[in-house]
C-alpha cells in the first residue's frame, strides 16, 4: 500500500470539527476583547477564512511533495529572515515583517513549519535513530534560523522554532544518553546564557515570575492583571462581554498574547476546560496521525507539528496563569494575528494530508 489512498477524504472530519469549534471560540473572544467592534471581527473572520483555505489546500498536497519541497522551503525561509534582518539594519529598527503590498507576514512564522520539515528531511536520509552526523546536521538546521530570529529580537518565536526542531529530533529516537548530555550542558551553560543571551527585560520577566506581587504596578503588572482576570473568572466565568479586567483595559495585550486571560475571565474554569480539551484533542489527534503515518518523514513531521502545537498552547496558557515567564507566544487560533493563524492552519493541513496517506487508522 504505497502512495495515496484515493478513498480517504481530503479532510479529517474530527480534526476539522475541533478546529472549527476553536475558530468559533476565537471569534467570540476576539469580539469581546476587541471592544465589540464588528469591523475588527470581520477582519479576524477574514483571516480565519483565508487560513482555513490554506489548510484545505495543504491537506491536498501529498507528504512526498512536501518532502521534496522541504530544502527549498527552508532555504527560502532563511533568505527571507536575512532579508528582514538587513531591512532592519538599514531602517535602523527592529523588523519582523515583510510587506508584500497586499499581505504582510513574518518570515519567522514560516520557520515554525520549515524547520521541522527540514529536520525530518535531514534525519530520514539515513536510518533512524540519528547518527552523530545527522544530529549535527539537525542542530545546524535548527540553530541557524533560531539565531536569526533571536536577533530580531523575537524570543517567543525563536523558542517555538527550536521546540519544533528538537521535537522532531526527539521523535526520531535520539539516544537518551545524548538527551541527558544536552540537558546537562544546558544546565551548566544556563548561567552563561542568562547573562549573555537574554536582554535585561527578559531576565526581569523570568525574575518577576518568581514573585509577580513584589512589583504589581511595574514589572509584575502584566502577570498580576492576567492572574487576577483568570482567577476572577471563577468556575463559570463572568459571562461573554462581561469581563471587566479585559474590557477596562487592565489586561495588557488582551487580544493577542493574553487572550487566554480574557477568555478565562469571561468563560471561567469550565470554559477553560472546554478550550483545553479541544487543544488536547488536536494535539493527541496529531500524535495519532503521526503514529499511523505512512513513512518516517511523515511520522516525524506530524509528530513535530503536534508537539509544537501543544507546547505553544502550554507556554501561552502557562504564561497567562503565571507559571511561565512572559514570552510572546500566541495561543493557537485564538490570538489575534494573521501570520500565526495562517501558519498554524497550514500545519494542521499538513497533518490532514499525512492522515490521508495513513497506513492504518
Amino acid at each position, binding site marked *: 500500500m504505497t502512495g495515496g489512498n484515493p478513498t480517504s477524504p481530503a479532510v479529517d472530519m474530527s480534526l476539522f470539527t475541533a478546529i472549527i469549534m476553536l475558530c468559533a471560540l476565537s471569534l467570540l473572544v476576539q469580539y469581546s476583547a476587541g471592544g465589540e467592534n464588528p469591523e475588527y471581527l470581520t477582519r479576524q473572520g477574514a483571516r480565519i477564512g483565508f487560513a482555513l483555505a490554506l489548510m484545505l489546500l495543504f491537506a491536498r498536497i501529498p507528504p512526498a511533495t512536501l518532502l521534496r519541497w522541504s530544502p527549498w522551503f527552508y532555504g527560502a525561509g532563511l533568505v527571507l529572515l536575512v532579508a528582514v534582518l538587513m531591512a532592519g539594519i538599514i531602517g535602523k529598527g527592529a523588523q519582523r515583517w515583510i510587506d508584500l503590498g497586499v499581505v504582510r507576514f513574518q518570515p519567522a512564522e514560516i520557520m515554525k513549519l520549515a524547520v521541522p520539515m527540514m529536520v525530518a528531511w535531514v534525519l530520514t536520509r539515513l536510518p*533512524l535513530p540519528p547518527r552523530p552526523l545527522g544530529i549535527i546536521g539537525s542542530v545546524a538546521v535548527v540553530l541557524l534560523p533560531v539565531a536569526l530570529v533571536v536577533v530580531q529580537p523575537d524570543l517567543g518565536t525563536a523558542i517555538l522554532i527550536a521546540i519544533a526542531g528538537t521535537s522532531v529530533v526527539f521523535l526520531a529516537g535520539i539516544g537518551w544518553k545524548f538527551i541527558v548530555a544536552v540537558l546537562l550542558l544546558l544546565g551548566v551553560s544556563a548561567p552563561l546564557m542568562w547573562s549573555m543571551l537574554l536582554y535585561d527585560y527578559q531576565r526581569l520577566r523570568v525574575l518577576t515570575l518568581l514573585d509577580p506581587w513584589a512589583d504589581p504596578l511595574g514589572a509584575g503588572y502584566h502577570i498580576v492583571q492576567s492572574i*487576577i482576570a483568570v482567577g476572577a473568572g471563577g468556575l463559570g466565568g463572568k459571562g461573554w462581554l462581561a469581563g*471587566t479586567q479585559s474590557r477596562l483595559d487592565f489586561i495588557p495585550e488582551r487580544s493577542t498574547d493574553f487572550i487566554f486571560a480574557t477568555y478565562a475571565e469571561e468563560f471561567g474554569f469550565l470554559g477553560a476546560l472546554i478550550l*483545553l480539551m479541544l487543544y488536547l484533542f488536536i494535539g493527541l489527534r496529531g500524535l495519532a496521525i503521526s503514529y499511523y503515518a505512512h513513512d518516517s518523514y511523515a511520522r516525524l513531521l506530524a509528530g513535530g507539528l503536534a508537539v509544537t502545537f501543544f507546547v505553544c498552547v502550554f507556554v501561552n496558557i502557562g504564561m497567562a*496563569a503565571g507559571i511561565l515567564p512572559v514570552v510572546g507566544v500566541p495561543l493557537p487560533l485564538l490570538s489575534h494575528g494573521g501570520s500565526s493563524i495562517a501558519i498554524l492552519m497550514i500545519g494542521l493541513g499538513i497533518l490532514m494530508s499525512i492522515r490521508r496517506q495513513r497506513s492504518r487508522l
Partner: protein
Amino acid sequence: MIPSSDYLRDRQIVRGRIAIAVGGVLLLVAILIARLAYLQISQHQRFSTLAQNNRIDFVSMAPVRGLIYDRNGEILAENRRVYNVEILPDRVDDMNQLLGDLGQLIELSEEDVTRFKQLVRRQPSFDRQTLRTNLNEREAARIALHQHRHPGVELQARLQRHYPHGALTAHFLGYVGRINADDLKQIDPRAYRGLEYLGRTGIEAQYEETLRGRPGFERVETDAHGKVVRSLGKTLPSTGLTVHLSLDIEMQRAGMEALRGHRGAVVAIEPSTGDVLAFASEPGFDPNPFVNGISRGGYAHLLGSQDRPLLNRALYGRYAPGSTIKGFMLLTGLQHGIDPGERIFCPGWYSLPNRTHRYRDWKRGGHGWVDARTGIVQSCDVYFYRLARRLGIDHIHQGMSDLGFGRPTGVDLPGEPSGLMPSPQWKHQARGQAWFPGETVITGIGQGYMLVTPLQLAAVTAMLANRGRPVTPRFLVATENPQNRVRQAVAPANAKRAAIANRDFYAYVIDGMRGVVHDRRGTASRLRQGLRYEMAGKTGTAQVKSIPQNERYDESKLEKKHIDHSLFIGFAPLDQPKIAIAVVVENAGAGSRTAAPIARKLIDHYLLNRLGMFPGVDNLDTTVGR
C-alpha cells in the same frame, strides 16, 4: 511492497517516542488544569475582589460647609466662590516652563511655587494640585483665555470659607484650615472624603461635625488608566447645618472698638440663657489668610507681636481677679455665718497677729469703720483681709469653687482653661510648698495665686445676676438644616439650683454692688452720670508687680507692662438683668478708670440701642442729687 526491516525498525523507534510525547502532553494538560483550578476555584474569591477593586472607584463630592450667623441673622462665616489654578502633573511635559509661563499671566509668589512643587513630589502624578488660590477676576480671565495652550492647567471654581467680619470674629469663631498630613492621621478619612478644609479653632472646630456635612460620592467604573467609564450610582453630599450663634455682632464690634488701643477682653452674657453676646479680645487678627495657610512672614509677624494678637484673651487669658471677687468672697462669708452688719475699723492696713508685715489698703488713709456693704461699695481691702483670715483658705477654696471659680464654665469652645482657685493641697502638689497664712489674706482681695479668665468672670457675674442660678455660657443657639429649613433650638444648659440657697445673701451682695455704681462714694460712681437704669458692678485692680513694703505704687514710675490690670464686672438692669459683663484691660490702671467705662458703654449700647429699652428716660438714678 513488503515493508523493509529498516522501515519497521524506524516505525518502532518513532512510535515509542510518540507514546512518550502523549504522556508529556497529558502531563502538561494536568499541570494547566491544576493551576487553573487553583486560580479559578480555590482562589476565586481573592481575585474576584481584586478585579472589583481594580474597576470600582469612588469619586467623592465634598459637602458645602454650614453657614454661621449671629443672633440677629448677620452672617459671620460664609462660603465664597473663588478661582483656583490647578495643575494635573501627568499632562504637563515641562513643569518649569509651564510655571514660568503661568507666572506671566498671574502673580505667583516663590512660596506658591515651592509649596506646589512639594505637593507634586509627594502626591501621585495623576492627582491634581492647587498652584494658586483666590485668583482675582482679571487673573481668572487671563488663565481661561490661555488655557488651551497649556494642557494640564485647569481653572477651578471652588467654595472657600470667608469671614466677612475679619478680626472682629477671629477669636471666638476661629477659622478653617487646609487639612494637612498630621490631620489625616486623626480624622476619619471617610467623613472627609473630598474635603480640603477642617475647623481649626473656635466655633469652627467646636462644631466641626455639625458644620461639615456629609460628603457624597459617586461609584464609578474606571478603566486601567483611571478614566471613568460610567457611573454606577450616586449619593449626593448633604450640606452642613447652618449654625446660629448667640453672639450679637454689633455688641462684638462695640466691645472691640471700646478696647481699641489696649490689650484686653470683654465678655458679655445674657444671664437668663447663658447666651454669649460679646466675646471680644483685642487686638484681633484677620482669620481669612489662615484659610489657605497664612504666609510664613504674615504668621511670624502675628506671633512676634508684643500684643499677642493670636491669643484669645476672653477664653485663655488668665488674670488675677483683684477686687472683682469681693462680692463672691462676701457670699462665701455670709454662707459661713458672717454678720454683714458687724463693723470693723480700717486704718489703711492689716497685719496678721504677731507679725509686722502690713497688708495695705488701696486707700492709704483707710476707710474707717466699715461694714460688709461699705466693704463692697468702697472696695475696702482691710475688710476682706480680715474676712479671708476668719474664713480660712479651706472655706474660701470650697465656697469660691462652689460659685464657679477655678473650673471651666463649660462654654462650647474648645480647650477652655479652668483658671485657678488655690488651696493648700494645690500648692503642695504644684509647688511642693506649704501654704502661708499671708497667702490666705491676699486671696481675700483676689491677689496671689488666684487666676480667672474673663469668661469665668462674666459667668459668675451672670450667676449673681440670676440670684445664684449658675450659668453655662453658650454660643450655639440653634442649628438649621439649609435644605428643609428645619430649625432645631438648643436649650440653655443653665443649672436650676443656686450654689447657695439663701436668696437674701445674693440680695445683700447685689445691693452692695449696686452701691459701687450708684452710691456717691462707690468706686465706680463715675458711671452714674446719665445712667438710665440701675446696675450692679464691681471694680478690680489687679497688681501685676508686687510693690516693696517701703514703697508706694506710682504708675508714672512703672514700666507699662507693670502697670495694674484694670477690671470690672457688672450687670443690668438690676431687677431683670439682660446683660452681665466682665471687662479686663491689661496694664490700664485702676478698674474704675478704664474697665468700668467700657462696661458702661457696652451695657448702654445693648440695653438702649440693641434692645431699645428705657427710651427717653434721662436719669433713673434717684440716689444722686444734682
